[in-house]
């Protein structure tokens, strides 16, 4: 089982500009991959394509032997819900929900909110938020918010974790904490991690780097 990009091209905007050109690679289960490259090189665009949020202009993405563009909407939703976790540069927590409720949102969709409650609390505890499960996002610091977002991404114990510059808005200490969490998920849970970063240090922590220049893979 693996995640494959097959002759993927992506054109965006008006007038159409080529953002990604002929991307081909395979990411095997359990890998920790860093997508690197300068700002504007197409890292985020590629991550969204790999994670089913966006569709390629040409070529296709294959996840666990399924061509994503041939899956029904329902299958994609189920796949995202059960197999994928997302972490973005900005945490995107739901402001009206407490930390714990936010973490449980994916479980709610799967009808597992009760079953997952203990696990969600465990995650918050592991991430140093044991005493804050009932706080609203605005009552948490930026680093804490991002940790809640990671807990939310991991609560379904997904096979894939997609992260778009997860440390981009954090100070160095909080960045360190977040990176440790992500690395542990990869090591302890076997989660396949695909992470966009332009931090050279963090990129080196990944076992594999896919480096983009102007929308082309130059090394992988």
């Amino acid at each position, binding site marked *: 089982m693996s995640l494959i990009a097959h002759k993927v091209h992506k054109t965006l905007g008006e007038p159409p500009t080529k953002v990604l050109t002929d991307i081909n690679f395979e990411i095997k289960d359990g890998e920790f991959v860093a997508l690197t490259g300068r700002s504007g090189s197409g890292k*985020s665009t590629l991550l*969204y394509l790999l*994670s089913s*949020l*966006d569709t390629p202009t040409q070529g296709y993405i294959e996840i666990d032997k399924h061509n994503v563009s041939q899956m029904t*909407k*329902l299958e994609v*939703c*189920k*796949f*995202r*819900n*059960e197999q*994928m976790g*997302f972490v*973005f*540069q*900005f945490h*995107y*927590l*739901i*402001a*009206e*929900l407490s930390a714990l409720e936010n973490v449980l*949102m*994916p479980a*709610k*969709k*799967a009808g597992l909110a009760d079953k997952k409650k203990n696990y969600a609390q465990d995650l918050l505890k592991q991430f140093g938020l044991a005493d804050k499960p009932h706080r609203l996002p605005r009552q948490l610091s930026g680093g804490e918010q991002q940790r809640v977002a990671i807990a*939310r991404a991991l609560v379904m114990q997904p096979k894939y974790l997609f992260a*778009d510059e997860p440390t981009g808005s954090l100070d160095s200490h909080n960045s360190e904490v977040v990176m440790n969490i992500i690395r542990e998920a990869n090591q302890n849970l076997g989660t396949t991690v695909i992470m966009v970063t332009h931090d050279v240090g963090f990129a080196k922590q990944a076992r594999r780097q896919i480096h983009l220049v102007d929308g082309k893979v130059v090394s992988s």
Partner: protein
Amino acid sequence: MTFLAVKYLLARRRQTVLMLLGIFFGTAAYVAISGFMLGFREYLVEQLINNNAHIHIQAREEFLTNHSLDHSFYKKAYDYIFWSTPPSGRKDSAIVENPQLWYERLRNDPRVVAYSPQLTTSVIFSKGKATVPATLIGCDPLQQTKVTTIGEYITQGKFSDLAVGGNRVILGDELMNRLGARVSENIFLSLANSAPIPFKVVGIYKTGNKLADASAYGAIGDVQRVSKSSNKVNEIAVKLVDHSQASAIASTWAKLGLEKVQSWDQVNANIFEIFKIQDAVRFLSIGAIMVVAAFGIYNVLNMTVMQKKKDVAILHSMGYSTKDIVSLFFTQGIILGFTGVILGLSFGYVFCLYLQTIPFGGGPTAVGTGYLMVSFNPAIYVQAAGLAFLAATIASVLPAYAAGKLTPIEIIRSGAE
């Protein structure tokens, strides 16, 4: 998505309350206004049904048309006749022809409870120097009380006292006052060109309707004798088992003879026309409130969708479907509608209970119960709820649909910049 919808609503309390108020007011106003309007109307209709005969069989009424005399004059000699002065006028009859036939028919009809032949005539009452023209209704006193509720409005004497015969009358309260007469006094009654005949006042009735209270009742035999038309009848009043069948039965009877047959609701058709106009006004005014309420919900929900774009994107990334997103916003409208309706109906109901305690009308002997009459017909509550729900639903459909069309990728891309 109800859980999150509720959270959203609670987080923006002021807007939620404002949206609720619109639905609440619309619902409460509908219940209160309808309760008040229909309460009076139900009373009125009840009076119409109970106090009067369900069906009136009256002397023939016929108007001449341009061609109604063609046949009489020319038989079939010509296909079409031009009159230099077309015939006009009436070909009425003052009496019901062959009433025996009707009695026979009515007696054998299981739908008929009772019938009462009447002879109504215009007379001049006088007592001392007071002379008052009025209508004298000759009836069979025992049958008349079965067909109408006149017996219940007797304030002095008994309606059945008329049955004894020998020139007795029961006066309406209004007529009594104008004549200055009292029970057991004699008054005089004269027709167009005959000498006054003494009648004894044996009772008084008061219905509260001044027009009806300006008439008098007598035994039909007396009235026939006085007007020198023995055995003649100009109306037969009929009471049915089921008043709601009146107009259908009246229509079939009308085809049986030349007499004019009308049901209680056909006689009072103008009142029902007014009811229709009242209903239109009621629906329009409540409709206006509902439109305002719906606009409020529409605006706030639309704004919420714009503000919650990021939530929509993140929910999509967690595997929530378009359907879930639509329901997240639609549910908010439904919750508002539901809560507003419950509050509105409750308040409307309590307000109606209060209205019932307001004194109105002239007490037990005049029209009504002495208090405002309010209807608690369940249909009012169902309609109010239906209208409010419709408003809330329509108002939330568009924003919910707009939310469903949001694609996560664009939101995430713009959020990352």
